[in-house]
């Protein structure tokens, strides 16, 4: 991440100088800061709501029951999660929210999953294999129906906006599989 960030910043500034976009570049830094504040405020609301809901799940013990239920499924991908750990529930709920395109629930539940996975982390500050698998699944974006894309196509008069559903599903299914394979390959190399 360090190298990537360094390259992005340096390349941007060099380009800004040569293309005469210096003013736009400087303005964009503060636009970026503003966007970060706005998104953080939005996240503050929805994350707090989901932390409240999942707290009820914890206090009532439901979180362990759900974990027990989905353990066989989740443990195929996440091998080192012990017993009926709460992280299994958070991962399951995050994947379900992603499948149904519930962005407002997927991100907070994903954060919850990361926090639960962190409780299993013995080397704080260093990412665990389980966290990597989880993030790779999330960045590959598994979704049954891309509602926003269909919405835009329909509003501009596409004859059959639903025609994109199957291709998108196929594309995400294949790319999620390959992403997990790429992760497995890197894991072998960097062991």
């Amino acid at each position, binding site marked *: 991440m360090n190298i990537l960030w360094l390259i992005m910043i340096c390349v941007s500034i060099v380009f*800004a100088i040569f293309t005469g976009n210096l003013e736009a570049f400087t303005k964009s830094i503060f636009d*970026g800061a503003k966007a970060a504040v706005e998104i953080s405020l939005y996240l503050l609301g929805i994350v707090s709501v989901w932390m409240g809901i999942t707290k009820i799940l914890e206090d009532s013990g439901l979180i362990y029951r759900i974990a027990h239920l989905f353990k066989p499924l989740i443990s195929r991908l996440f091998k080192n999660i012990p017993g009926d750990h709460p992280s299994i529930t958070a991962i399951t709920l995050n994947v379900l929210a992603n499948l149904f395109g519930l962005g407002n629930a997927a991100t907070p539940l994903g954060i919850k999953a990361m926090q639960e996975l962190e409780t299993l982390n013995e080397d704080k500050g260093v990412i665990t294999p389980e966290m990597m698998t989880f993030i790779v699944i999330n960045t590959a974006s598994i979704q049954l129906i*891309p509602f926003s894309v269909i919405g835009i196509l329909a509003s501009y008069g596409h004859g059959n906006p639903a025609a994109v559903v199957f291709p998108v599903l196929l594309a995400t299914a294949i790319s999620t599989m390959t992403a997990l394979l790429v992760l497995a390959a*890197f894991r072998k190399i960097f062991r």
Partner: protein
Amino acid sequence: MIEHVEYISLLIIPLFILFTVLYGTFKKVRVYDSFVAGAKEGPAIILNIFPYLLTIFVAIKGFQASGAFDYVRNAFYSVFAFLEIPIEAVSMAIVKPLSGSASTALFTDIVKTTGVESMATHMSAIIMGSAETTFYVLAVYLGSVSIKKTRYLVPVCLVSDFIGIVVAVAVVRWFF
């Protein structure tokens, strides 16, 4: 079929919340107090995420505004010219991992300028639906638990994004 999934999507969160509070009450949990106690954790989590989000957003916005983005897009376009991918779809492929709102704006623009049933629109639609805002996900999820050493995660995500776009292009060619 789509209407059914859409209805389930609408139903799923309210039903889940209802079930959670009823089950909690059945297990003698004071659900109101529980919810408050959970919500109290929210601000600390966001405080952790905020600096990561800010750092990545500044880099992304600067990259787009400086003209470097256009250069990268044109470079990609000429390198992969033999695949005959519309330049609009190339833009989408690069924007989507960087920014969700920018990719939505770009997609609307592509639909307007190239027509709603053009190859560029279809290809962008599949990329938009099948790719994710990788940098945002990385900043939020890693930031929430203050991970500093990400090992080989970032290269894995970038390679996977690239493969995902190739897959999307292939799928579109096959369907449309």
